[in-house]
């Protein structure tokens, strides 16, 4: 029997409301508004109240996939990562760094955005980095 609440930030919009994820025996079972959060002060919108619902939705990806012909097939991490690195480096070699690009994400954390642009700027050597802020 283990129940705790984890203070975190709602992932649904830029407002940045404080939420508590309720975790019972390692499973997220609910969302509560953080009562003493300066932005939402214990209130949430309908998306916020249900911020946990998509976590266990059918279709969550749990394994790397690699395309074999028409199909995406499960693969090991090692295989997938090596393949990604190899192909990008090959293309860079063949067409130059500006033949590669990335779409980063406004849904991801600062750290993740930083790392992705660092890969493309520092490792690949291109400024083809954008995200959907304008979309």
């Amino acid at each position: 029997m283990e129940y705790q609440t984890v203070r975190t930030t709602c992932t649904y919009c830029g407002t940045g409301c404080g939420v508590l994820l309720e975790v019972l025996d390692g499973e997220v079972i609910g969302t509560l508004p953080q009562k003493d959060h300066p932005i939402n002060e214990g209130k949430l919108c309908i998306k916020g109240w249900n911020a946990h619902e998509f976590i266990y939705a059918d279709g969550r990806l749990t394994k790397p996939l690699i395309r074999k012909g028409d199909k995406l097939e499960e693969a090991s991490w090692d295989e997938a990562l090596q393949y990604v690195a190899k192909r990008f480096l090959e293309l860079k070699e063949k067409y130059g760094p500006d033949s590669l690009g990335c779409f980063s994400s406004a849904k991801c954390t600062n750290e993740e955005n930083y790392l992705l642009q660092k890969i493309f700027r520092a490792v690949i050597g291109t400024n083809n980095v954008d995200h959907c802020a304008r979309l």
Partner: protein
Amino acid sequence: MENLKKNIKDMLESGEIAGFLGLIEEEGHPIPFLFTKDSLDKLDALTVPDIRYPMTDILLKIVRKYPEDTIGVMVRGCDDRALIELAKNQKILSDLIRPIGVACTKEMAEYCRCSQPYPREIHYGEKVEGVKDRSDLEKVESMDLSDRLDYWMGQFSKCIKCYGCRNICSMCFCDQCTLEDDTLILTGQAPPEIPIFHLIRAFHMAGRCIDCGLCEEACPAHIPLRSLYRKVREDMADYLGYVTGMDETERDPLEFLGSDGYEVPTKIDET
């Protein structure tokens, strides 16, 4: 406080309770936490803050998964009233709940306009007298009908349909909510259909509402929901002599006529 911690520790260690639902302070923020024999060290962070989380609502989630375990829970007056109602509605077995009662401070009682800011049994804090304040109802009652309607429609039209009032409510334990019944209320609209959305919830609160006020605290549109529910609560008392959250053996007169003959309370027929 140290006594309280020791008390909880003893209960957990002796196996009298399998878990204790309280609040811990984490980086200055109080959050709900379930203490067990394996997390006794967390008791240092146990706190009785000036903010409230829906303790009995959380308790239900745990009880649903562990229906046979005895669980302790920190309760204020409002939570304790909720426990009584939950027992009436067969959501918990009182024998399997060990409420650890906390009396609210004068300031909190006033902030919450709480008529009974203490539980049946107090383990922490000093009992202070309840606040008798129906100014919110009086404010509405002082208006004439058409002003009232304008007032409420104005309030309801702010609703963004977050369902927060229901989600935070200790007495909303249904798995499926009538507010989401698309044959009754159109879905996908914000504000939802008014006033039916709010009036259905208000009527459902008759015989249920324990007047904790968490609904109003959770409303992002600042709708004075609590006064609606206080009104039906007051009506239940006035017309039917029934006050929720007082006695586990009493039954809701909107469902139960009583076994010794059927009578219509006289005040009802005057309406």
